[in-house]
């Protein structure tokens, strides 16, 4: 089943169509690889180190949501609060090594321990080369986003294993103000943008505290089953990795209550695909594909395990990765 399903037959389609969809960028000359890494690094640095308050609109497929975001960097420590402005009330608090998601309608708090490798990894020369080899970066038009001067950029994939990305960065800080992911037909599958943004202001860290100082007594606290990651050799590998993807993490994660889940992460410098391998009895997930905007997932049974690949890549990319997972 695995082997016969694994051929990436449709992977060569689409680049031409995609190029047509990106015509507005076509006149711009490609930008050097170091500039690509610099651009991404600068955006990551700004998102991490600056204080800001803003409203974001997030479009994923046909769904559109808005949220308020407050970010504070207090002497190197990050505090962040995200509040959904439409739909059911939702709140995400990110601080002190964990992410808390509040669901007042369900009287639930999900707590995920996170180590926040939020610093954009400074790309190795090899990764920079991969970025340049599998994407063409073009400088687009200057424009405005959220009332701020912005510079447009496009990462056009050179093959169908990755999506095209369009970015608008803040001219003064380099922060990402708007991002779009386009599929193989040049259609927007996901879009996120600031509608308004107060940047470079001093923000009171108290504003990032959750609405609920402590979890109400009739709420449930739920800790994620995936826990924290412990890097190390897992004995698993991906045999038919799409070109340009290199392993950036291998390890196990768990809460100690259940058998650990293996996680492997592969990146092409711009996006990543994670592979999760867990015992079948433990996995209460269906097999097959799932999609949320620009994120695709593919799950498949492999002997006594369920293998799930997911990432900011086309369905065929995550499928090929999921279907070629094997024991070393």
């Amino acid at each position, binding site marked *: *089943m695995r082997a016969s399903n694994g051929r990436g037959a449709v992977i060569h389609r689409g680049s031409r169509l995609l190029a047509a969809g990106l015509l507005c960028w076509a006149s711009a000359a490609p930008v050097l690889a170091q500039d690509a890494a610099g651009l991404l690094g600068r*955006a*990551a640095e700004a*998102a991490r180190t600056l204080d800001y308050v803003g409203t*974001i609109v*997030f479009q*994923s497929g046909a*769904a559109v*949501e808005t*949220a308020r975001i407050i*970010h504070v960097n207090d002497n190197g420590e990050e505090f962040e609060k*995200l509040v*959904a402005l439409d*739909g059911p009330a939702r*709140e*995400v608090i*990110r601080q002190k090594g964990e*992410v808390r*998601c509040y*669901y007042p*309608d*369900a009287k*639930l708090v*999900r707590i*995920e321990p*996170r*180590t926040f*490798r*939020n610093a*954009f*990894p400074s790309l190795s020369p090899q990764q920079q080369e991969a970025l340049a080899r599998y994407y063409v970066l073009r400088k687009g038009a200057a424009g405005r986003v959220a009332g701020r001067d912005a510079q447009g950029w496009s990462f056009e994939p050179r093959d169908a294993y990755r999506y095209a990305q369009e970015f608008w960065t803040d001219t003064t800080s380099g922060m*990402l103000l708007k*991002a779009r992911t386009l599929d193989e037909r040049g259609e927007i599958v996901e879009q*996120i943008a600031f509608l308004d943004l107060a940047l470079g202001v001093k923000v009171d860290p108290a504003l990032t505290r959750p609405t609920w100082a402590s979890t109400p007594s009739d709420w449930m606290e*739920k800790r*994620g089953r*995936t826990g924290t990651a412990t890097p190390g050799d897992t004995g698993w590998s991906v045999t038919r990795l799409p070109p340009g993807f290199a392993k*950036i*993490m291998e390890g196990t994660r768990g809460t100690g209550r259940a058998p650990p889940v293996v996680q492997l*992460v592969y*990146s092409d*410098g*711009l*996006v*990543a695909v*994670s592979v*999760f391998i867990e015992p079948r009895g433990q996995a*209460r997930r*269906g*097999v*097959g*594909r*799932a999609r*949320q905007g620009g*994120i695709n997932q593919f799950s498949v*049974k492999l002997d006594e395990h369920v293998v*799930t690949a*997911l*990432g*900011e890549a086309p369905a065929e990319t995550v499928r090929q990765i999921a279907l070629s997972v094997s024991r070393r």
Partner: protein
Amino acid sequence: MNEDVSRLMDGELDDDAAVDRALAALRRDQGADAWACYHVIGDAMRGNAPMSPGFSRRLSAALAAEPTVLAPVRRVAHPATFAWAAAATVAAVAVVGWTAVSLTDAPDVAIAKAREANAVRAAEVRTPAIPPDYLLAHQEYSPATAIQGVRPYARAVSFGVPAER
């Protein structure tokens, strides 16, 4: 018998004798079961959700209210002959979705299996939300997270299901 019914369903019977044979087969006791079975299998393979109870009755009522079409246009192109494929080979099983459907099964068993497969397939078609725990675990390492700051978390919270099953 099954072959005629299957071909009838796919609109592949051209001569009247064959149509009469198929209709006669449908009138016999197993015929209606086979008809229903092939449709469920066909739906499963096309990824259509199962029909709600009473659908046929409502459809009949709606059709009765429609003006009569005197010369129905024969379908020329078939995207695929699903029922025929199902009748011809159990290889269809792989397409239906990892659930064994065998035509040696009694029709009700086959229907149950096809329905089960349909549930898997329908879930796929509806593209369920990605589990937030995996999403967050992934985002911890993805460069896309670093570039966008916390915003990828918006995905996990606003589009995620509140509780895991």
